[in-house]
């Protein structure tokens, strides 16, 4: 057997509560992003371009959407005698009576899988982030410095650091150094280097620390494994990543990161990054080119095949099959697959999940909204009744029953419809 030198394990189990209605029916990593892709396409495309060909995806929450998306793995060239993507769902057996109890537990439960392939290093990645990275550079760093663990970090403003795992990294080398301290979501962060959840482990060390970790009652890489390795004086390095890093943990962040796709020189350049997605998922390969009618217009926007545009679209991202009828206006919004926007509709700062219909004269959001949360999010398979007004920062759960829409035809700012 040709042994892969690197085995990648993608943590794709989580639901991420803050994304709410977008993750009712799918894990975070399967959330659509970028007008045609899914969040997990970013790490998968990075792996493809890094030449890493043996991948496991640890999936727990509502994994069907993810399994369907990965398919055979052919979309990322991961199909062949020595290449492949395996999805590793949680299981119960003689020793393990429980689900994955955390990211570290998920990897621990699949140690037999890792040992079967016997890699020289193990890459553990989150499936939840938007970035382009050549993992080979980090692996090279890891091997040059004979590290037990190399974790990637990105510099963030001090005020937002407390949301992440934060490290102080010695200035040993241009691209990284020994990790001096590590704290998970500290109130008063000491450093400004935030963890990307991209870890490169020496396999023997990973096995050892995961086993030890089983004695505790918390099983997370950030919260438990890294601090343990720091305490026990393993050779832990921080790798300084200096590229674009987009996180999508809340609806507002999701919206903000999506806006980085737009403009003449976008921070997220899908074409240059070589992002691939599974074209068989939702039949996106079968959609005809974007059709723009006589009165249709798109400004500073992005649209994939299958869209039909007769109305006005500004600063927006349209996934395959979105229809914008004449007399409708879509501003600063992200519409997932197969949304229909009827005439007279005005959308401002909306994220709308798949198959939602905005009937005549619906209003969602307003051009000017007050803080804190301004983006409204609509769950999938909704039909927003004619003339209905949804305010700013609202949340509408998936598939609301026709009878459940408020009779006064309005949902005030910041309200939730379940």
């Amino acid at each position, binding site marked *: 057997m040709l042994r892969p030198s690197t085995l990648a394990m993608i943590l794709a189990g989580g639901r991420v509560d803050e994304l709410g209605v977008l993750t009712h029916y799918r894990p975070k990593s399967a959330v659509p992003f970028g007008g045609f892709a899914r969040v997990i396409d970013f790490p998968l495309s990075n792996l493809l371009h890094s030449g890493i060909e043996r991948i496991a995806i640890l999936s727990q929450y509502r994994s069907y959407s993810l399994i369907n998306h990965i398919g055979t793995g052919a979309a990322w060239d991961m199909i062949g005698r020595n290449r492949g993507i395996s999805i590793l769902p949680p299981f119960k057996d003689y020793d393990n009576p429980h689900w994955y109890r955390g990211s570290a537990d998920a990897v621990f439960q699949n140690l037999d899988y890792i040992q079967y392939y016997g890699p020289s290093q193990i890459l553990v990645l989150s499936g939840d982030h938007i970035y382009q990275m050549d993992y080979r550079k980090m692996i090279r760093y890891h091997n040059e410095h004979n590290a037990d663990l190399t974790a990637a970090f990105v510099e963030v403003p001090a005020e937002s650091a407390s949301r992440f795992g934060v490290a102080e990294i010695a200035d040993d080398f241009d691209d990284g150094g020994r990790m001096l301290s590590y704290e998970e979501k500290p109130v008063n962060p000491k450093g400004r280097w935030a963890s990307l959840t991209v870890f490169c482990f020496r396999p023997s060390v990973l096995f050892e620390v995961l086993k030890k970790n089983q004695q505790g009652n918390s099983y997370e890489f950030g919260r438990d494994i890294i601090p343990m390795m720091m305490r026990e004086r393993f050779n832990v390095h921080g790798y300084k990543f200096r590229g674009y890093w987009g996180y999508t943990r809340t609806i507002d962040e999701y919206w903000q990161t999506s806006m980085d796709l737009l403009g003449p020189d976008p921070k997220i350049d899908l074409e240059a990054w070589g*992002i691939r997605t599974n074209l068989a998922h939702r039949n996106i390969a*079968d959609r005809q*080119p974007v059709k*723009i009618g*006589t009165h249709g*217009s798109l*400004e500073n926007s*992005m649209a994939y095949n299958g869209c039909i545009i007769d109305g006005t679209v500004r600063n927006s991202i349209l996934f395959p099959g979105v229809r914008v009828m004449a007399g409708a206006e879509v501003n600063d919004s992200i519409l997932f697959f197969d949304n229909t926007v009827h005439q007279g509709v005005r959308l401002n700062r909306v994220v709308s999940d798949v198959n939602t219909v905005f009937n005549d004269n619906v209003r969602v959001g307003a051009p000017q909204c007050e803080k804190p949360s301004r983006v409204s999010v609509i769950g999938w398979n909704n039909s927003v009744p004619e003339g209905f007004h949804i305010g700013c920062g609202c949340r509408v759960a998936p598939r609301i029953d026709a009878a459940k829409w408020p009779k006064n035809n309005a949902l005030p700012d910041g309200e939730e419809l379940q």
Partner: protein
Amino acid sequence: MRESGDALVLLLAGGIGSRLNLLVGHRAKPAVPFGGIYRIIDFSLSNVMNSGLTKVGVLTQYKPLSLMSHIGDGAAWDFTGRTRGIKILPPRTGEQDSDWYKGTADAIRQNIDFILANPSEQVVVLSGDHIYRMDFDAMLSYHQHKRADITIGMMVVPKRDIHQFGSGIIDNDNRVVDWEEKPKVPRTNLASMGIYVFDTAYLLRTLARDRKEADFGMDIIPRAINEDRVYAYPFYGYWRDVGTIQSYWETNMDIIRENSGISPEDWEIRPNPEYGGRPMDRAPARFLDGGKVASSLISAGCVIEGTVINSVLSPGVRVKKGAVVTNAVIFDDAVIGENAVVDLAILDKRVQVGAGAVVGIGDNLTFANKDFPKHLYTGISLIGKEAKIFANARIGRNCIVNFGYSDDSFSGQDVLADGQSA
């Protein structure tokens, strides 16, 4: 679910389609790109798939490479599986036959072994050159119901066009009672679409009769209407033979036009997303500030900074700032430079139009191309694959710029005049 029994499909994809000029310089007519992301043959192949038919032979002849890679293993049209399949059937040298196909019937005759190897009740013979949607399952049921030996797909066309087709006269039961191949003086407006259903046993018998009968329209059918049961299967709907530059351009434009009757997506036409460097693996089309697009088809991977009106753009086309593209069909990855103008033109793959250049200058649309007056006579100019039009160059109407052309001329006062070729 298919109503009719097992039928074998033979797709004639060997035609040169020489009237398409530069577009068929590197590829067979069925492999010519169409409608942004399709190839012409996708329409026939998708019709076959959507009719529930699963065994196909594709008879190739002229420049088959592009076509063969496009078809691949046929997975795009669901032709892979234990009892499904699509086979490419190139011409072969037999013991006494010369290798090229002499006509439609001769092509089928040379592949009798393929017909015998795939037992069927009926054989469907199609052309890979047409843009239409048709349910062959319904046609097969009709054929069986009529207990016909041959059923011919036929439609009404304007009388002035009938000279390009085989034309038939039918009785009240749709039985064909008279036949004229490409008549100069039409007696009817019912034209053959080149779509035939044969009873397999009948087809084998009739092909064995006389080896000199090389063509269905010219030889086989005129004889068969006297001796056998030949029926017309009436087709109502959109159908185009995109065999000329003019009809190719018009048919592309029909996709944009409201209520023109053609809609590849509604027709469930499938392209091959894996072919040629994965053309579909493109980011969504980007529409930048200052750009304007109306009445157009824009494929994934396009970046539009200028103006695009009434045009069909394949994946990866860039229209830079200030450029104006009107009434054009542009293939993959062409670049229209800043402030360039393209009007009434077909640009093949990777054409580069330099900044400030004009393709389609002047109002004289009727001065036909000198070298190919029958190909280009309505104002459309043709720019071959990978040609490079330098900055500020000017190209007139009905012009041809050859593949890979890259001389620094036609700038300033020096115009490629109407009807000229480079």
